[in-house]
Every structure is written in C-alpha cells, then in structure tokens.
C-alpha cells in the first residue's frame, strides 16, 4: 500500500515538473494577501489568527501559464469580525 502511494507521488511530481518545463506554474496563495488578479475569493473566514485579507485556504489551485493567468486560484480569505459590511450573499 505504501509502495503504491509512493509510486503515485513520484508520478504526480514528475507531471508537475513537466508542466513547469512548459511554463505552467502554480499560483502561490496560502498565507499571502488576497490578489484579485490571480485569485478568486469563494469564501470568507473570521479568523483572529490570520492577518486581515490573507488567504487561509486554497480550495482549488490556480495556475499561470507563460506569465498569464490560466486559471485563477479559488481561495478562502480571512476577515476581521466587524470589518465585513453587509453580506449580500451574492456569489
């Protein structure tokens, strides 16, 4: 079972390397300030531990391809309680 898992991990790593060699890069989000250019906020978390406006979870990884956003990352972002205005619940 472990060996099988290891095998998959190696394959996944190889795949990522290959993608990188073609200019595909994962967008680095976790812990960074929210950047609407490359990230799409799909949720808000009231988290006292994390700085306001920083990414606390990546729901779907985003990628850049040859310097342009191929698919934005879907992220959850920390907001201080009280900092949020009216939640209109629109997606």
């Amino acid at each position, binding site marked *: 079972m472990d060996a099988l898992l290891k095998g998959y991990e190696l394959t996944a790593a190889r795949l990522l390397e290959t993608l990188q060699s073609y200019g595909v890069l994962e967008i680095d989000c976790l812990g960074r300030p929210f950047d609407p250019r490359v990230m799409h906020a799909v*949720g808000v978390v009231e988290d006292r531990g994390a700085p306001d406006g920083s990414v606390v979870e990546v729901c779907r990884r985003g990628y850049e391809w040859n310097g342009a956003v191929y698919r934005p990352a879907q992220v959850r972002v920390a907001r201080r309680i009280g900092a949020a205005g009216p939640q209109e619940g629109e997606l």
Partner: protein
Amino acid sequence: MTETELVVGIDLGTTNSEIAAYVDGQVRVLGPDPKMLPSCVGLSPAGELLVGLEARHQQVLYPERTVRSIKRKMGSAETVALGEQHFTPPEISAFILRELAGWARRELGAPVSKAVITVPAYFSDAQRNATREAGALAGLEVVRILNEPTAASLAHGFGDGRRRNVMVYDLGGGTFDVSVVTIEGDVTEVLASHGNNRLGGDDFNDLLFERLAKEFETRHHVDLRGDSVARARLWWAAEEAKKKLSFDPYVRVREENLAVAEGKPLHLDFELSREEYEWMIRPLLDSTLDSISKALDDAGKTVREIDAVVLVGGSTRTPLVVRLLQERTGREPLQDVHPDLCVALGAGVLASRLGGHEVERVLVDVSPYSFGPSHMGLRGGVPYPHCYAPIIKRNTPLPVTRTERYTTCVPHQTTVEVDLFQGDDEDALKNIPIGRFRIDGLRSTDELNEVLCRMSLDMDVILHVTAIEKETGKSKDVTIRNAFAARTEDEIAAARRRLEALWAAREADFGFEDAGGEEDGPVIDVPVAPEIIDMPLEKLPGREEAEKLLERSRALLPKIHPDDVEEAVAIHERIEAAIQARNAADLEKAAADLRELLFFLEGK
C-alpha cells in the same frame, strides 16, 4: 466628421460589456479573449480600482467594495458605495467604458474618442441620458445611442436598405427581452419590446445548483447550501455544466472535497442529461414564449409577417431555446453571429458607417453546410435506415464541437456503422455522402447500447467525427478534410463511386477484431473541385437576382405545402452550389427554375 475616423461600438451590458470597431476592412470585437468584460467594478482595500474579472474575484470577500449589474440602476438617483466612497450609476458605468476604450486603444494603437453605445429598447429618456453621461465621464463623445435589438439586426446584415420585420430574442445572464423591429435602410423602428429584467442564464444556474445540492444531500446526508464555500464552488460547477449541456447530451459534474463527514472527505460525481436539464428550465422558457406573443400583439404583427428571428445572449445557445422558438415562429432562428458579441458587433457596424466606412455586415466564420450521420428511424411511419438529422447545422460559428446520442438498433448488437453526410434533407440518401466508418467490439447487452457521435469542425475546415460507446468510453474516429469543398453533380457522383470503392476495400479489412480507441483513424481526402476558384462573387453574373429570388422563396417556406418546400429547398441548394462553384450556367438554370416555382407559389 472627417472622411474616415475612428468610432467604436460598445455594448454596455448588465452582465458583460464588449467593444467593437472597424479593423482591416471588417468589424471586429476587440480585447483579450474572451473579449467580454464582466460589468463589475470594485475598489480594493488599498484603494485600487478593479474593473471586470478582478472585481468579480473580490465580490464574495468585499461585497461592500464591489458593484455588479449597475445597468439596472442607470437613470435612478441612487448612488452606490465602494468602501467609503459613493458613486452615481453613470460614474460606475464610466469605469467600465474606460476599461473597454483601453482595450481598443491597445489593440488599435490609437486613442478612442467617439462611440456608439447600445441600450435596451425599453430604456427611458432618463436611462438613455445616464448612458450618455457615462460616456462623457469616460472621455467618450457618444455620437449615437442605439437600441440593442436594432444593433443585433445590423450585425445580421439587415441594414441593407430592404424593409424587414425582425424579431430579436435576447436572453442574457440576468435579463430577457424580445423585440419586434422594422428596419429599412437607415430608418429603424422598435415596434414593441417585452421581457423580464430578472430572468436569465443565472436562473438556469440556480436550478442546476439546486439539483446538484439535492443529489449531494441524498447521497451523503449533508446539506451544502449552508456552507458558503461549497455553495460557491457548486454554483460555478453548475455554470460549467450548463455551458457543456448546450453542446453535449450529458455532462459529468465532478467536484472533490466539498464537505467532510466523520473525518472523511465527501465528493460529488454526478451525471446529468440534457433532457433532465431541459425539463428543469422549461417553465422559465415557456414564460419567454408568452413575451413573444405580447410583443407581436403590441407590434400589430403576426408571426408570418416576421422575416427573421435573431438570437442574442449567451443563454440562447441552449438547444431547447432554438427548438421552442422554431416551433413558435416556424422559422429557423439565426445564430450565425456570436450571440454574446452580436450587439457589440452591430454597434460596431453603425460606428463604422458613422466613421466613414461602409460595411454590409460583420464577417463570421460559419459552416456553410450541415453535417451529420444517418440513423435508423421512422419515415412516414415505416422504419427507414437512412433517416438524417444534422449534428452541426449550417451557419454555426466555427470552431464548433457538438455531440448527439444514438442507440443500437437491437440487443446484443456489437457493431455500428456510421455513415456521414453533408446536407439538410431528412432523407440521408438525398444528401452528399462524405464518409463512413465502423465501430466494433461494443459490449453485448440485453438492452440497447448508447453510442455518442461527436462532430468537431475547425477553422481549417477539417471535420473530426468520433463514435463513443457511452458506457465504456471505447471510441473510434475519422477525419475528413475539405469538408466544405463545393462540388458539381458530376463530381459528387464521382466522389460517391470513389468512396464506395474505398469503403468496399475497407469492409474487407475489417475482418479482424478491432482494438479501437487508440488509433488515429483513417483520413479521407474528399476530392476537391479541380478548377481553382478565383472569381470574386461580385463578378458572378446573375448572382444578385438569384439571391433575391432565394430570399423571396425562403420567406414563403413556412406558408407552403411540404411538397413545395421540398422542391424549393432542392432548388435553393442548387443555387447555393452554383454560387459557391461560381458556375454561371448552372446558376442561370437554377434561378429560372426557382422563378417559375415562385410564380406558381405566389400566384396561389
């Protein structure tokens, strides 16, 4: 105005906005792909202005710093807040217009100062003035405010001087309206417009979302509707599924890690059929049909007086919309101009004219022919093996991929022959055969087996056809080059013979068990007309008259006996083939036949 100057056309939409201009002899929509700017504006906490997708990305996080659908508030005294600052609706719209003007400037290499901006036909004076003001705030001189249905008619080339009644059916992301427009030369009149400015593709999304959430709840006993992140992800998945169902009979929705129960991640893996989706949205679409009746009544027109039905808005890609409209109006709705970009292109056509460039219509790459496989079915109540319905219909914009569903004829059938044709006749044998292939080794089942046929036609006029056994994914494909090559009757006969011979040889080769799936499939080179066609269309004698006859005859089609329709369509095809082949002699003969038929039909 000077002889030629740069005027752009802008569709300032509720959900998306676009900009078009005259470039290299034609009207084109400008900007980075997909050339649509979400009509959304935001201010980041740092005070940075965000327009379009970037603003949409922050909507969930900073709803109090983001505004969408500002068009609904145009003309009202209301202001909207972005953080601590307040803006009027024209000011928000100005941000969108500026961004679009920037797209045009970057692409054309010249500053943009004059614009035609479109508005819904039902916009009041106050709303129109607010739109002008938005233009002025963005540094644009608004040389004309244009009604959206009129713009759509212009994009389809109905501004050519002849008098026509056009029905424009516009189903966007969040608004619906149907208008009846009379257009004659530069004079256009919107006779009536009806709709619902709270109905659109987003409602279809909501229904799909509910369906997915219910499915998840049934399977895992977890309600995702309470979790904002899962809800957002599922809504986007519903949007993707909706788009795919316009082209495929099934969609597979796969979303991983939507929820966690007892430490285990829960996933959604669900297949939805187009049939079920259409059943879900049917009541909404039925309400749009009521609006059609109202618009016709108000315009004082009957369906028969409508010369063309034009589709606008991304949601009209749903095949059910086309079907319902066809049933209601008796005409094939026109969708050859990109439905999302149609209004912008029409604004671009008027802008070009005002700027001193005469354009007849916008150029789009469409398939001039229909393509599809034959199938076993009923014809006149009797089983007939050569029934035919196109998968790719003519005038579909390219590139396009569409899939349809078929079943085997008998249980335990393991081989399917796929015969491919070009044409529109319900009888496949009256169309032009373009290829044939066979998929064997299908599973032997007690029930009928589903086989999907996928056809893709690209800009290089290469047709890819794939047959897929739905259950296993086993597939086989064929590539047909020169799918558009126009041929004369003799050439078609020769092609038929040649292909028959090839097929006979291939049949013999099929004796062994086919592995299927991985091989690239055969490439059929359909013979091309030997002479090089270089005569410009304008020089073809008799073309204009023939096209006028065609127009007259097409207008009659919904009103005449099916036998006459068959005869008329056959002549239409001869005329089109003759024009395509620049064959003046054939054209003259076909036009004479049509003139005779029209004399007979119009005299009735």
